[in-house]
């Protein structure tokens, strides 16, 4: 059980700044996602929290205690890597027992703990087997077992499902999350997969080029992205960007897209120059009554829904609609935007302009 607080954390490798000035707080018992593209600094951040790298500057507090310059062995955390680092010559029981045996715990106590962990993970029946012949999923469960058995203050996981195929990853993700819900221990999890982050996380930190782009609950980040990077990284397909030039004033309740007036949540700040209207695919409808016209290019069937790609005056627009709605390639139609859900960005800085709708989320971002 632990609360982890990061303040102004920075890491330089020579001339290269891997992480610059990160700050966020992980509450006790949270499943916390460090998300971003490769090279964004998420793994470096995790390694500093674990004590595998020392920060160049800034602080790391675990339960209020500053541990930034302490080695991993003094932080009471457990690390699960992408590649399951098991001892190949030992059987499952001895692999899981290892951390306890090396602490000098009495045999009987070790046995009791390992049996309990095996029960939690559903691997009682393979305890006597050598790890060499196990499936990928069982190997991963054993690696988890070895981390859990120590009852550390926190679990740190670096893309633990990255090497698994899609169907199996989905199942392991559910299992991991269910395990966390039973144990309630603080977990910090690194991934580049936005869906995995949305699906499993209580909170997400999204990083890019060593900088925290946004920090918050998955739905808040999805609905109210702080930057165009966030809007594009989260969601599949990502948020649509309709780029235009002009001026918006504080209080504006419309933007002008060509000949069309599109209602938006009232802005709290203005901008002149490059502007971008951001709309999620499921927040746009095909509506012949709308004067904002577009031509259907392709239709992708997804079962429950379908993704319609259209060519509009301001670029390509992808719309998610129920799969029973008739639509055909080449059709010209109108696009209606759900006014309550739109974000306007400055195309110059890439930052979202504050509005009545997003100010609460961005306020504590």
């Amino acid at each position: 059980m632990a609360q982890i607080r990061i303040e102004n954390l920075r890491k330089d490798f020579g001339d290269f700044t891997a992480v610059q000035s990160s700050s966020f707080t992980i509450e006790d018992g949270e499943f916390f996602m460090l998300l971003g593209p490769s090279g964004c600094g998420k793994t470096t951040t995790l390694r500093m929290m674990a004590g595998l790298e020392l920060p160049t500057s800034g602080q790391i507090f675990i339960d209020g205690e500053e541990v930034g310059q302490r080695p991993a062995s003094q932080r009471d955390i457990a690390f699960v890597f992408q590649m399951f680092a098991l001892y190949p010559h030992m059987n499952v029981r001895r692999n899981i027992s290892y951390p306890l045996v090396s602490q000098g715990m009495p045999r009987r106590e070790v046995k009791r703990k390992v049996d309990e962990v095996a029960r939690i993970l559903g691997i009682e029946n393979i305890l006597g087997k050598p790890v060499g012949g196990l499936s990928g999923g069982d190997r991963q469960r054993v690696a988890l077992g070895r981390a859990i058995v120590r009852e550390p203050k926190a679990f740190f996981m670096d893309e633990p499902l990255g090497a698994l195929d899609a169907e199996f990853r989905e199942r392991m993700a559910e299992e991991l999350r269910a395990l966390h819900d039973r144990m309630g221990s603080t977990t910090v999890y690194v991934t580049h997969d936005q869906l995995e982050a949305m699906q499993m996380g209580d909170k997400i930190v999204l990083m890019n080029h060593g900088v925290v782009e946004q920090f918050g609950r998955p739905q808040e980040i999805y609905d109210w992205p702080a930057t165009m990077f966030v809007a594009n990284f989260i969601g599949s397909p990502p948020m649509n960007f309709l780029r235009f030039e002009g001026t918006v004033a504080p209080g504006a309740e419309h933007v002008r897209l060509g000949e069309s007036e599109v209602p938006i949540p009232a802005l709290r700040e203005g901008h002149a120059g490059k502007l971008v209207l951001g709309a999620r695919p499921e927040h746009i409808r095909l509506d012949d009554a709308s004067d904002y016209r577009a031509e259907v290019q392709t239709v992708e069937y997804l079962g429950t829904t379908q993704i319609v790609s259209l060519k509009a005056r301001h670029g390509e627009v992808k719309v998610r609609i129920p799969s029973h709605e008739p639509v055909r390639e080449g059709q010209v139609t109108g696009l209606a935007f759900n006014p309550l859900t739109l974000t306007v960005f400055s195309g110059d800085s890439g930052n979202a302009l504050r509005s009545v709708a997003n100010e609460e989320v961005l306020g504590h971002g």
Partner: protein
Amino acid sequence: MAEVTLKGITKTYGSTVALNDVSLTVPDGAFVVLLGPTGAGKTTTLRVVSGLDAPDRGEVLIDGAPVTRLTPAQRNVAMVFQQYSLYPHMSVRENLAFPLKSPLIRMEAGEIEKKVREVAEMLQIAHKLDNKATALSGGEMQRVAIGRALVREPAVYLMDEPLSSLDAKLRADLRVELKNIQARSGAPFLYVTHDQIEAMTMASHVGVLDEGRLVQFASPREIYENPVSIYAASRLGLPRINILPASLFPGAPSGARSIGLRPEQIRQGEGAESTVTRVERLGDQTRLHLHFRKHDLITVTDAHTPLKTGDTVKIAPENPFYFDAQGARVR
């Protein structure tokens, strides 16, 4: 332009039956996706069509002509693999031109350059023609590999998980691109994947393979909305279809052992009570994990649902699928 037909193909490797009496037709201009888990026989099918493997029994026909005894080169098919397999010491231009320099084709240098440029522009790699193949990103390398198949204008394209090593965004882009390329070229594609999104979004026809047998061959919509078995129903749909004992709900027809419920086949707000065990907010939708009469199921609801863990939701089946004890559909 061609039509590919497989007639009663059986292929064994030692004691393993990789393909068991598979018959199917890839119509001219079709985008056929073979779907199934590892070991279902997808790649073997491609290898038999390409001529890399000979079937034990059965025949392959291209445009009505038997090709079973022909070598891969004589069949005029192009294959794209999961691994890019480019020539690392050559430039992108040389890689693309390579198939055209084959003695079988004997194309003039000016013609080759024109063809290479055309394909490079279609795949948006024209600005990289002089780069070494190794200086490209993963997505660019895979585009060159696809380009190398395109320059030849073969009768048939065969692709074995060409997008599986790419990251999610690039995969989404190339999905659309491949579909457009197929539509423009008009040649049939036979495409292997275990990614159901690729199957649903690109295919005109999906062939579902189960341990070497072709169990359903139809449009993605038909397989999703009208599957022949639990196995076929489980290949498409995210979250996956819920399979529960038919006796859990009233109204099961005789002979039904299981009921199959996709999220849109679960009506919320009426019927019997279930308990919410987890709420997953995916942004565009929210997944509800439910516990119902000692069984777990997953459905979807509004992105901004106020429901939380421990709440009660009433659920009732709506036009569900029923399956018998063998997993076959009961109608």
